[in-house]
């Protein structure tokens, strides 16, 4: 179900995901999904000082291979919002394979140091009732675009 995990990161009813890589969106005139005009991303080195208002994408060390009877909801860790980081994440559907990509937004007035292995979000696993179908997405395998 999960590769590259750390036993110590298993919590009472969740798993703390660790940050592996970060990516910064390139500035373009307008993002327009209808015309497929999407921001491109450049990989940044860690540690990185995140300025107030800055937005990045993060990728986790952990790789999911979610079975069809399980889904996980990704949630911000309380430490993240306490230091002023807004973590943007979605549902991890059954059948998803790959790393988790999430948004990191500094909503505080302070600069925040982002480093490798930092736990910013957690996965809550839910056992599903009934049968499911594997998700088909272009983001499979932790693709950014």
């Amino acid at each position, binding site marked *: 179900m999960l590769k590259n995990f750390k036993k110590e990161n*298993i*919590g009472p*009813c969740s*798993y703390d995901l660790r940050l592996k890589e970060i990516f910064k969106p390139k500035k373009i005139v307008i993002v327009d999904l209808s015309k497929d005009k999407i921001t491109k991303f450049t990989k940044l080195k860690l540690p990185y000082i995140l300025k107030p208002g800055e937005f990045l994408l993060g990728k986790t060390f952990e790789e999911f291979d979610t079975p069809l009877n*399980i889904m996980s909801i990704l949630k911000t860790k309380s430490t993240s919002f306490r230091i002023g980081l807004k973590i943007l994440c979605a549902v991890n559907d059954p059948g998803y394979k790959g790393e988790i990509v999430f948004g990191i937004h500094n909503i505080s007035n302070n600069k925040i140091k982002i480093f490798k292995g930092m736990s910013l979000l957690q996965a809550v*696993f839910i056992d599903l009732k009934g049968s499911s179908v594997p998700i088909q997405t272009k983001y499979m395998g932790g693709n950014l675009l």
Partner: protein
Amino acid sequence: MSVLAYSEIMKKITGIDEKRLEKPFLILSRHKITKNRLKVLKELANHEKITIGKILKNLKQSRGGGSYLTIRDFFLELEKEGLLKREKINNKCYWSFSDKNIQLKEFILK
């Protein structure tokens, strides 16, 4: 629909059933588990079977009588409890986790 708790997440991610570890942990807790004893068990878990001398060598610890005998006594106690087993090959005594306690070995390794 239900949310998975610690033991279920552990089982799904690592394949380790925590309930099956309760007994070996109870046994270990009776035998003064020091930091060094844990290191020794970890080194033992890293091998299918190994001699005490080789464990001490790998851990860069003294292989003198005192250190050797302390570990041997500890292993003998764990053997009595069924956690470990020993095998004599060419006058050398090889130690390993007993078949019943493979889950403990996996837990120590992961």
